[in-house]
């Protein structure tokens, strides 16, 4: 490839990918930060896109104003839930996988075991079973 054609080719490559990269970052800035698969969100949490945090930072001028959530805050919440899974596995685990995800989010939020420090007992297992029954019925109807 001669010099002129090479530069033209590289210009087209850089120009095209420049547009693609710009568009992608615009999308990332305004996209919601939670995953599209429906990961379990802590209840009562409001998610804001990255742009919100950047604007806040630029206006205030301090990085300390970025309030990223501390993952450890909700750790116990999740692990209490997982201990409930242990109590019922593999039955409960089997029910989760192939079905709808959105319900899990509310399902987790509704579980009394989700409170920090609460211990698993027979009553709780019964409540969980009720939830599972409800969950299965709803999922199959959908």
């Amino acid at each position, binding site marked *: 490839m001669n010099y002129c054609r090479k530069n033209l080719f590289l210009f087209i490559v850089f120009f095209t990918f420049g547009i693609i990269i710009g568009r992608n970052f615009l999308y990332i800035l305004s996209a919601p930060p*939670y995953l599209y698969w429906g990961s379990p969100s802590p209840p009562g949490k409001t998610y804001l896109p990255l742009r919100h945090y950047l604007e806040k930072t630029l206006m205030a001028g301090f990085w300390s104003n970025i309030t990223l959530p501390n993952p450890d805050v909700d750790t116990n919440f999740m692990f209490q839930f997982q201990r409930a899974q*242990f109590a019922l596995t593999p039955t409960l685990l089997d029910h989760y996988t192939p079905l709808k995800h959105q319900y899990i989010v509310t399902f987790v939020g509704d579980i009394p075991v989700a409170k920090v420090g609460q211990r698993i007992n027979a009553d709780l297992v019964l409540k969980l079973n009720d939830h599972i029954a409800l969950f299965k019925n709803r999922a199959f109807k959908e």
Partner: protein
Amino acid sequence: MIYLPFLIALWLGRTIFGLIMRRSPWPDPIDICASYLIGIGVCSCLAFIQILCWHHYEPSILNGLTIFSILSLALINRNIQFHHINSPPKYDLHWPIMASLLIIAGVTLAFFVFNNPYGDWDAWSLWNFRASFLAASGEHWKDLYTHSIQAKHPWLFPYWILFTWSWGGGITTATPCLNTFFLSLILPVLVICGLREWKVPFSLALLAGAWFISMPYFYYHGASQYPDIMITCFLTIGMIFIMRVINNTENGPSFFYLLGLLMGFMLLTKDEGLIIYMLLLLTLCLSASGKTIYWKRLFLPLAFILPFWIAQKIWMIPAPAGENQIYFGHLVNRYRYVYIVKYYLHMLFNKKMGNLFFIPLMFFVSLFGKNLRNSYPKALIIFLAGFIIFFFLLYILVKENLPWRLWTTVYRLEYQIMPLSVMLLFNLFSSISKPSTRS
């Protein structure tokens, strides 16, 4: 404290790298990444050994075992003379640009990762869940392999998470978050530095890196805490090392130990690790003809890895009826072919994939480049074609519900080959833009 397990993995990996290669990985970014990945593999094997020998998870014993390994390796390493030292990189304007790209990627990734502290579906319900099971199950730890859902995988990843908890001060979501953060950040480094190794101009390599980190899927999947990120790192670095053999930049006997070790850890990461391992071997066979390949040294690391793999396979219960079964009658069902192709296209045109449809388009355009006839990256094309064809056939033959199977797996497979696809494309661009050798 939560950074400690990652530093230990890096240190252990660096020492093992030094023992094998008789040189320090510093300051080559690819070698540093390789060291870190080896460290992860070794640390997870340490966690496995601790539980196997003591019949339950005990952080203090695991930490002691790690310290013993560090001290032993340090003692052995002290007597080894490094006969080769990497030349320092030539610093120019490109390096600050690369650092800026990594900072942008890091900040954005941190935002996504820490907004999803539990990771995606499989992370909290399978992979991290298994890690917490190992931590809490006591003597029943082998039940890890008998829970029916996804019992087919070898569980290197949960053992690594367990190791991070052991050194990170307890069970926390912070270390899985940091783990996925570091592993994801390795990928743009590998893309840029790998392309540089293949003599692609730095500006094009940086453009490839910028495109890679601009893909929304890089962040979405990076925050998922799936082991696919780990397998993508092993695969990408494995291919870069294979290209070193092909390009004669590094093909000493000891280098094959390193390559074998890195490829072998894929066997312990996920069940498709075995397929990728075989495909990489095939790529090496087909594209490195005329080069010296030390097969025995390549397979020797398996002596270390296979016992872990076999033990886990023995304890596994068989897959439930209907799962992972194939039916050859599907070969004549043309609707399955159409459905799979449509799904592939749907994924390529997905906005979250960052408009990946440019890959086939640009690839098609690149084929017209006259310079490509002699300089196309044969190994990359062989691997990617083999990967796509194999999984296409698997989807055709699989017995279980096809839409569900595609919906739950294609995006992960796409992520696994995303760095190599980007590298292939920019390698082709570089080949096209090179001055013609013909008069």
